[in-house]
């Protein structure tokens, strides 16, 4: 593929997923300007690797690159956040604790939910965003987040429990204040 024709087919296949790319980068970096830089860089990388893309799932392919670019960017700019590797077990929540949260969730407004998701550890945040906002299948999430399929399910489960925990603590704080 040469210059213009490569650019044209790239724009057709990959540019429509710009919102998904920005959404993921924005949730991972938690900052507008950083997300824009990451997405631009990811698109350039994607364009360079476009020869290796054979028209499968353009969105999952692009989001994988966006994720990697975000991680690289954060390593360079905010290495402190990445230095605590996630131990899935560490965040295990007993299911007994979860029962009152259905009610709390109904009270939680959008702002609260947004804040709670932002507080999640990076690895939980990304699977949750891919599942709940991009409505990706486990298989797609496995591709994007470079995880075994089985890990996607267990990590999502933990991410949700953790989120509910955060929401619960916020709602309680609000009720008390």
């Amino acid at each position: 593929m040469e210059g213009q024709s490569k650019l044209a087919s790239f724009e057709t296949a990959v540019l429509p997923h710009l919102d998904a790319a920005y959404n993921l980068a924005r949730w991972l970096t938690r900052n507008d300007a950083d997300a824009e830089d990451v997405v631009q860089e990811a698109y350039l990388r994607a364009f360079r690797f476009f020869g290796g893309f054979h028209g499968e799932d353009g969105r999952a392919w692009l989001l994988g690159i966006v994720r990697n670019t975000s991680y690289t960017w954060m390593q360079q700019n905010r290495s402190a956040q990445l230095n605590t590797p996630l131990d899935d077990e560490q965040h295990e929540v007993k299911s007994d604790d979860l029962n009152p949260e259905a009610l709390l969730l109904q009270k939680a407004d959008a702002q609260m939910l947004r804040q709670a998701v932002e507080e999640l550890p990076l690895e939980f945040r990304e699977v949750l965003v891919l599942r709940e906002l991009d409505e990706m299948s486990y298989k797609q999430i496995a591709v994007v987040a470079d995880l075994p399929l089985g890990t996607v399910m267990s990590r999502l489960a933990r991410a949700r429990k953790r989120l509910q925990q955060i929401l619960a603590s916020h709602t309680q704080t609000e009720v008390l204040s």
Partner: protein
Amino acid sequence: MSCQITQEFLHAYVDGELDLARSLEVEQHMQECQACASAYHNQTALRSAFKDSSLYHSAPPKLEKRIRSSLRREAKSEVGRRLFGWRWLPVAAMALILVLGLVIWRAVPGLRPSGDEFLAQEMVSNHVRSLQLESHRTDVISSDQHTVKPWFDGKLDFAPPVKDFSSQGFPLLGGRLEYLNNRAVAALIYQRQKHYINLYIWPAEQSNATSEVGTKRQGYNLLHWTNSGMTYWAISDLNGVELHEFARLVQQAQ
């Protein structure tokens, strides 16, 4: 299905990732188990909270513009890299070596035959051929310069000076048309005892006169000079001294 297993599959069930058989088991269990049913409602509540909250960050419109222009730049430089990139490096290096070689070959006199050397080789071949057969020697046989000179008229785009030097021991035998140095030239043939001299004449490229330059090839002596707008090449198996004497006669005659 136990509570533990149900809880394990609950997320896959909520996400629509569970196969039909297991889904039915989970549903059946939830009808019997309040705790698991409540956990399921938690999950669906969370899912709908996400749906209702518009947490999706859409890309700002300026970002698309920015990306499109950076992609165009990248596409251009990629074409540039492809044309002049590493793939072409061996080819480019080879071409450079060839060009450098040619430049050196042309610039260093010792490495290449000069124009004069090519010409000298041509002269020798022509001289040898003219002597192989008597019929090759002359197109017009005459020791009379007034016969030979008009013979060239209309056959060449110039009028070669023709002189007989019989009295000096170099009789004129005749004249020939030749094609040398990429043009038609006049060839005059002289004799010195048993030796023959070919004198080739054509208009000089430069008008300034140059003095005699002598070379030796395959046993033949060659002398060439430019005088009165004509280039002269004299070639013979005659010794250098006598050929030089002949050359001097030709130059003095003009």
